[in-house]
């Protein structure tokens, strides 16, 4: 056994706190070590050459690199040793940067710790065995979950690369939250004008299969081979037959709130979400319709000329296979019910940003007239409260939702354009305009359109006759402010949608502290997730504006295509394996596995049947949960065998 140890200085990153020469010198004294060297940047080409040369000249069997985190450069050095004919899984990385130099400042102690870590890795290295990467076939088809702007864009981009893509949407139409917006910042483009062409393209593109009014129920399988069950709820209207003539709507006797208009207007039990909806077909809301079990009313069916209505439609389970998945399940806004301190629930004209958006929209409940919800009075004075329920770790959301400053500014500007003699006042903590042309947009609102900005928080809202008395403080002038408003708009932030939470549990994605899906790396892998082959775009990972969402969707599409374009892909080699003789078949590992990779199977010994655990090699991600849970270590992980770990612990204990 000949081991080479390579200690990296990482410029001064490591060498400032660790005496790298001493560590290398010490490594030479350890068993099996044939060579030990120091270099300034081991990951740079000359550093890599040193290792390659040694493997050749000194006939090394194993290589240890003492440098940064394996998440950073393990792939780099694996490639280096593979290039010289060694098995990539015999590489051992000692993290003396994140675990030593960056967290300590005493050089003496740092050096001692680095030595211990190197020693434990030398002990482990001697026990490491070559591993083989398995290859699996790939289904050349992608699934996109959620059809807001993120999902639409991802599906279009995948389809544009020539691959088949299935787009699943929970509600009756695609378009998501963007379809509810009237205009978009910072250009005041009409939202529908820029979104509708994309929606139409989704409906028309032969590479896209759209399944609306449906949810992903179950996902099994692994990268390249996801087996997905999609539950499509009945629409009760045959999409192909519906001509959108609207004859059914006037005869429907059931009146309910219209979700598209944020419940500010009524709709019938048979309806279309909005005129540009895709699929372009009406839908019956089964919760309210009187025709579906028991059949009390069939007025719509009676008047429907093309006979598009079918009360007997049943839920449908669609099963399909996909090579990659893009999650684009979007967001919800922070519930206004939580904001009692701003009169939400008591004062009817305290509304959310999204409600104001519908009010100001020509397609909205007051057909663009800007009448307030309580008494239909035309709105003259409006107050926007920024950070309503945001940046408030004590009571509400701790984070900044990043779009509220801009959408309040947009709405104030739209309002001023609409109601020239009206006043729009913004109470803000900070104005955050991080985005191309955003600052200019804010300046335009404040200076040209005379939107008023007051830096400070609103302390109290009181119903004062027909108006709302807003009490606040201007923290720049240290004066208290009192003014009257017709409506108060709470600029509520973004929270993960229910769909995001649901899909995270179906796919077993990890969630961050605020409930958004966690990216594999916040900077360098922003659309990748903890599961290979599953990507995420848009607000499912956190608050985003439209440009950022669209760019993310594009990257997610490319990453999905990276997989579905292959015929075969490699899967992880450091997977779990079972010692069938030790296994007692208790199945603790089965329950612990976050990827459903383990099942209990029957095995025969001398005619008797025993249950033992069995690992699906393609599903296993090598997380090690099973190996930790097994009571008598009958399950182990390649590359992290108990004997290797024990050797490391023993080495550390001897110091």
């Amino acid at each position, binding site marked *: 056994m000949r081991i080479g140890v390579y200690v990296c200085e990482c410029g001064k990153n490591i060498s400032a706190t660790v005496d790298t020469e001493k560590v290398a010198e010490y490594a030479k004294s350890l068993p099996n070590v044939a060579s030990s060297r120091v270099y300034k940047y081991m990951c740079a080409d000359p550093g890599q050459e040193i290792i390659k040369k040694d493997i050749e000249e000194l006939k090394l069997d194993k290589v240890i690199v003492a440098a940064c985190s394996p998440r950073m450069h393990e792939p780099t050095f694996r490639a280096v040793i593979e290039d010289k004919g060694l098995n990539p899984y015999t590489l051992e990385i000692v993290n003396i940067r994140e675990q030593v130099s960056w967290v300590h400042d005493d050089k003496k102690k740092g050096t001692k710790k680095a030595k211990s870590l190197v020693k434990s890795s030398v002990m482990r290295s001697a026990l490491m065995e070559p591993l083989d990467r398995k290859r699996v076939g790939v289904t050349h088809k992608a699934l996109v979950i959620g059809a807001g702007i993120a999902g639409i864009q991802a599906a279009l981009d995948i389809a544009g690369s020539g691959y088949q893509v299935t787009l699943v949407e929970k509600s009756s139409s695609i378009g998501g939250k963007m379809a509810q917006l009237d205009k978009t910042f910072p250009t005041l483009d009409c939202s529908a004008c820029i979104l509708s062409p994309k929606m139409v393209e989704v409906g028309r593109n032969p590479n896209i299969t759209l399944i609306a009014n449906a949810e992903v129920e179950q996902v099994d399988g692994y990268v390249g081979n996801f087996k997905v069950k999609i539950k499509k709820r009945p629409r009760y209207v045959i999409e192909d037959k519906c001509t959108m003539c609207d004859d059914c709507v006037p005869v429907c006797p059931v009146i309910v709130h219209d979700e598209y208009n944020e419940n500010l207007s009524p709709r019938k039990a048979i309806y279309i979400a909005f005129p540009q909806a895709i699929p372009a077909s009406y839908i019956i809301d089964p919760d309210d319709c009187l025709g579906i079990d028991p059949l009390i009313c069939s007025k719509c069916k009676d008047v429907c000329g093309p006979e598009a209505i079918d009360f007997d439609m049943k839920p449908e389970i669609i099963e399909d296979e996909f090579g990659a998945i893009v999650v684009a399940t979007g967001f919800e806004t922070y519930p206004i019910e939580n904001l009692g301190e701003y009169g939400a629930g008591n004062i009817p004209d305290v509304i959310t940003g999204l409600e104001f958006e519908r009010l100001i929209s020509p397609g909205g409940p007051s057909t663009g007239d800007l009448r307030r919800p309580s008494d239909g009075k035309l709105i003259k004075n409006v107050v926007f409260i920024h950070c309503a329920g945001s940046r408030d770790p004590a009571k509400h959301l701790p984070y900044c939702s990043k779009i509220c400053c801009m959408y309040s500014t947009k709405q104030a500007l739209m309002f001023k354009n609409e109601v020239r003699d009206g006043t729009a006042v913004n109470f803000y903590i900070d104005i955050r305009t991080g985005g191309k042309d955003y600052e200019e947009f804010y300046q335009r609102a404040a200076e040209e359109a005379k939107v008023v900005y007051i830096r400070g928080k609103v302390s109290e809202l009181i119903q004062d006759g027909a108006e709302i008395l807003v009490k606040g403080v201007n923290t720049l002038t240290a004066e208290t402010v009192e003014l009257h408003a017709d409506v108060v708009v709470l600029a509520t932030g973004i929270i993960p949608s229910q769909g995001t939470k649901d899909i*995270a*549990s179906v796919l*077993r994605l*990890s*969630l961050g502290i605020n409930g958004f899906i966690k990216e594999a790396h916040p900077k360098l892998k922003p659309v990748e997730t903890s599961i290979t082959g599953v990507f995420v775009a848009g607000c499912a990972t956190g608050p985003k504006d439209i440009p950022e969402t669209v760019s993310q969707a594009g990257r997610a599409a490319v990453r999905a295509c990276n997989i579905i374009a292959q015929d075969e892909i490699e899967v992880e080699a450091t997977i779990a394996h079972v010692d069938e*003789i*030790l296994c*007692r*078949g*208790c*199945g*603790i*590992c*089965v*329950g*612990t*596995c*976050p990827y459903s990779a383990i099942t*209990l199977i029957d095995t025969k010994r*001398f*005619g*008797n*049947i025993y*249950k033992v655990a069995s690992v699906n090699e393609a599903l296993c991600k090598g997380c090690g*949960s099973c190996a930790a*849970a097994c*009571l*008598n*270590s009958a399950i182990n992980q390649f590359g992290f065998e*108990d*004997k290797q770990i*024990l*050797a490391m612990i023993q080495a550390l204990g001897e110091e």
Partner: protein
Amino acid sequence: MVDQKKLVEVAKETLARKDVKYIIGYKKGSYGFQTSAAFAYTPKDVEQFIFTPLCNKNLAKYPLKEEKLPLKRGEEEDKRKIGIVVKGCDSRAITQIIQENGMNREEVVLLGIPCPGVINQKEIEKRFPNQSEITEINEINDEYVFTIEGKEHKIPKQELLAEVCKTCDYPNPVLYDVMIGEEVEVNPKEEYEGIKELEEASLEDRWEYWEEQFQSCIRCYACREACPLCYCSTCMADLLEPQWIRRSVNLSENTAWNIMRAFHLAGRCINCGACENACPMDIPLMELNKKLGKEVKEMFEYTPGLDIDAKPLLGSFNPDDPEEFIK
């Protein structure tokens, strides 16, 4: 106490079933205050079944210890059920084993006995150290009544009752096919009173206390052999590659063994006290088990051995776990 005639009667009926192989119960021991497990294959074997306050072993251990002999070609596995006489704690052990896939519910027939509590073996042997005659004990009006060398003894129940029985919340079987006798009354008890003092002690004092205890361990593994939930075919302590615990009997290895044993029972121990009862060196093993049981109960709101359909605590994965205790 349970009517022994009824026990024998029910056991005979059960044994007469075509799908029952044999029944495990208690019989008189061979000396002193011992009782032993009885394996009844015939009605005559059943005649020797007893249930007295000395039936303090956990019979749930036995079905898993049955050796599966190699089968001849064409020979079928004997799929008949094993009958077991179970107290509250034995039934919880069986429940936990079923929950963990250690056996199937269909493999056993449970003859449930509501248990008024059993005697602390060590306590009674300490009081009558030289008693080698087989002694029968009856519980009459909260007193244990027995005769030694012609002299009748009456000892208040609380003085001899096993520690685990004093705080038992489940004296009635939680899982059974036949219940023999009336259910006994359950009084809610302060289950973790016994470890309070230890919990409040300083880290150093606790370490010193356990060092002293583990120092005396002779690593006979009687605790493991008696425990109904230590049923791995090969125990980790016996593995050679890698060797987690060395064979030598010293404080370091003893500590490693005892901590491993306790941790392997976290979320699984059903408080029968069999380990402590079996320990020849009187190590208070139940103190460790109870402390872990308490942590498990408080952190995860989980009590082992109550529901065969529940998921074993350490074999479940919950993405919504608040993990409030991780600091």
